[in-house]
């Protein structure tokens, strides 16, 4: 086959280009929809968890945690202090906010029932009767489409009481966030879901013990849920075979930036970054300069490093991460300092502000990059960037501080000459890029 992998077949995107693919009728008739649910409901919950475990499905939200294992962490029969049974909640993380990532939106708009089916199966597997879909605040259209899909599923009896005569009840509710990037972090998401400030919680306790509304909860990504029906339908072996030894299946990669055909591609994981760029039509308008392989938080790679494979482990070995599958391609017209500043400005704006290092550090880095771009930088600044990053990474409640240091640290390590040029020549003006500087000066900071 075209991707040099004889087992590969699109799991999620097979029909997304066909008209009407988002409707329940299309999903049932063409995609054999809700058959996996039928099968799963006849199995014991533990068997479903085992099936997912064996498929090597890993969380598609960014951290890559094995999904089956996460489900098996859920307590079997939780009780409160008085011995009364506690409900368990299944939460779908649809707060897709990572810059460069747009794969979940494709699932929402083109094949929502795959995700709904995955959630019902997940609910059956962990013994939950209620699911929440936490949708990022800006997705008005997508949330309406999802609500429509949920209504259709209720009408056909896939949701609600006694699903398909199995005695299993499952309700699904959507919840629109207020537009904070940090709410993609699972405990911040739970806080936001409860109506509190979207700030990550101190762990332990983990959501499997104390999650939404204090109840045991399981949070998974949209793409993770969308892969579940396939695993149940076609069997774990087929899914596992498509991937590498430690992570099964396919991945949705959102390729953006300087490529000729930016889009979401469903790909096997044994492809290198260079191959993916080739699939996306090759680099547009110049030579490849740098690639951010997994959403803005992933440290960037230089053109020379781009023959690395895109599975979780190979990317980790290369000092970056698979993240949420947002591949940002930059050609040689890009000034790396400027590009990094754009990301840092985003992080400065999105830090929740709980932890000292992250609140002050993300602000400091953005300001420092701004000064360097405007010609006020010094050589000591360049040395100090690494020191600030060293004081931030791994020191806070959640991984946000690490995410900030990803682009900042990799840019100064790998493209130091560009920083030095800006320092010596007096900023962007000195290298003839006034155009890009002007709009950054006014209103650059809130």
């Amino acid at each position, binding site marked *: 086959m075209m991707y040099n992998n004889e087992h590969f077949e699109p799991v999620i995107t097979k029909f997304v280009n066909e008209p009407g693919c988002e409707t329940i009728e299309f999903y049932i008739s063409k995609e054999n929809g809700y058959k996996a649910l039928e099968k799963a409901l006849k199995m014991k919950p533990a068997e479903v968890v085992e099936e997912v475990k064996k498929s090597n499905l890993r969380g598609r939200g960014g951290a890559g945690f094995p999904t089956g294992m996460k489900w098996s962490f859920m307590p079997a029969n939780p009780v409160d202090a008085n011995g009364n049974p506690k409900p368990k909640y299944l939460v779908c993380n649809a707060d897709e906010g990572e810059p460069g990532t747009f794969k979940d939106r494709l699932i929402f708009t083109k094949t929502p029932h795959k995700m709904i089916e995955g959630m019902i199966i997940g609910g059956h597997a962990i013994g939950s009767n209620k699911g929440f879909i936490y949708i990022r605040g800006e997705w008005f259209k997508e949330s309406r489409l999802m609500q429509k899909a949920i209504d259709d599923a209720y009408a056909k009896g896939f949701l609600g009481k006694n699903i398909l005569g199995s005695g299993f009840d499952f309700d699904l509710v959507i919840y629109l966030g207020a537009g904070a990037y940090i709410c993609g972090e699972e405990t911040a998401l739970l806080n936001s879901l409860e109506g509190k400030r979207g700030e990550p919680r*101190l762990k332990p306790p983990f959501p499997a013990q104390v999650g939404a509304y204090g109840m045991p909860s399981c949070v998974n990504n949209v793409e993770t849920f969308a892969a579940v029906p396939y695993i149940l339908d076609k069997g774990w072996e087929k899914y596992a075979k498509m991937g590498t030894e430690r992570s099964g299946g396919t991945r949705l990669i959102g390729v953006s930036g300087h490529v000729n055909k930016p889009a979401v591609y469903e790909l096997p994981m044994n492809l290198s970054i260079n191959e993916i760029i080739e699939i996306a039509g090759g680099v547009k308008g110049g030579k490849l300069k740098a690639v951010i392989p997994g959403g803005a938080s992933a440290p960037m790679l230089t053109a020379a490093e781009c023959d690395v494979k895109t599975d979780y482990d190979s990317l980790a070995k290369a000092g970056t991460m698979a993240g949420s599958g947002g591949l940002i391609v930059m050609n040689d017209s890009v000034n790396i300092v400027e590009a990094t500043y754009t990301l840092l400005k985003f992080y400065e704006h999105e*830090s*929740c502000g709980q932890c000292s290092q992250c609140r002050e550090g993300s602000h400091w880095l953005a*300001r420092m990059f701004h000064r360097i771009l405007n010609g006020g930088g010094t050589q000591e600044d360049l040395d*100090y960037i690494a020191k600030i990053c060293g*004081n*931030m990474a*791994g020191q806070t409640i959640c991984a946000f501080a690490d995410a900030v240091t990803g682009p900042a640290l990799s840019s100064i390590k790998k493209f130091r000459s560009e920083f030095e040029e800006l320092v010596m020549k007096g900023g962007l003006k000195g290298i003839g890029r006034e155009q890009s500087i002007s709009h950054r000066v006014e209103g650059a900071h809130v």
Partner: protein
Amino acid sequence: MSNTTEFEIKKPKVDLNYASEKKPVASDPSPEAKPLPKVTIDGKTYEFKPGDTIMQVAERYKVHEEIPRYCYHPGMPIAGTCRMCTVEVEKAPKLMTSCSTPAADGMVVHTRSDKVLKSRTGVMEFLLTNHPLDCPVCDKAGECELQDYNYEYGPGTSNFKEEKRVFEEATTKKLSDQVTLNMNRCVHCERCVRFTDDVTKTNDLVMVNRGWHKELEATTEAGLTNDYQGCLTDFCPVGALTWNDFRFKKRSWFLSKKPSICDRCSKGCNIEVHSDAEVVYRYVPIHNEMVNGHWMCDSGRSSYNDLMNPMRVISPLMNHQNGLHSTTLQALLGELSIQLKNASSVQLVIGTDATREEAALLKDKFPSILGKNVSVSYFNGTAGVTSSADDKKMDNLLKMKDLTPNTKGVEEQGISPLSQGEVSSDIVIVFRNGRAGIPKMKAGQKVILWGVWNHDEIKTLSSQTVLGVIAGLATIEKEGSFKNTDGIVQKFHPAIVHKGGALSAHQVVNMWKSLN
């Protein structure tokens, strides 16, 4: 609460408002007792109670004085956000926050390793980037945790060359009549937010916005509405929240700090009296888990103003030609003795703000001095409170209905309340210390005032004949004990030296005795 609990108010051993004051764990000596788990901190092994966090174990055994902290406060839920208390735990990949990490058997902790100190230096540098370094004009200077920890852990210099964050509208923002906010100094520990959420449960404060421009605001236009606002200014680690009553009155390093007790209600909150040259500048609460926890109410906190009131009578006064005139105590007592001896009946009313010792002294010794029958009763004077049975909690924290400190202690002496709340004798002696009410008296009633009085109170007695005023010491100026509403007896010593002409009840009684 048992009636036998008795202890002395003293400064906590750890000189910190924010320490839990945990005591070392005593092993159960019985052979069948399970051995307590052990944790190794900085090379020494300590026993702890299951459930203790690393910080609590370190506090039990005073490992290195203290682990630095901003967001942690023992009276509130744990946030774990300031990252100042991180310690190195062997086998853990990252530094752990000691405030939130439970100690485990066999855990090996380093609180001062290079990695830890480097992290703390990092936190200090970050916190100081946007903090205005204007300590000389900041009211918190001298008792500021940012200053203290910076001396110990800070980098000394900063590489922050950018412009500092300025909250122009919140540089001196009144959150209420009592508390002023300077947002520029805030280090975002959010103790204040958690205090109003979880301790007073009034939800007065909230952080708005995200990240570095996260700002503290009152949830409603009314601002702060709870009765414990002063506590916010106690535990605010920096000069962001300041108590208007104290703000810019005195530099903290001039204050002498002595423990005492608040006499504003029957709770008996433990306080520290902050004074300079025997002038009181403020009260702050001392931690006492059995009585007030870490807190005290605002009316108690402001009550030092009554004591420092220039209208307070601090020398003996005698009635002469229908006016009260300053005199010596000897002359006054001589005159009063004659009047009392000639009186047809004498009554002594003891306010429930007298100490247990004063009540006993007046009841047992006083009648024998006069050599005649004196009817003794007590008077509370708080609206709706006659005896300790009428006392009740006024909120979910500390405030009590009874606004005098020692109703139970006076009752304990076998004294009964003033019948009908009215006096009926020829001459009545009213002994009170500024907290108990003044009993109702008919016009022309001859009355002797004893204790803490001020001229405004005496003016309300214009239709009575005040024969004389014997100036007495206020609670924080004297020694004694109170029995609070829960039956806890608390002893206290003078926190300041009285500089006027007032004397203790013992001294007055002795002098009176020597005159006869």
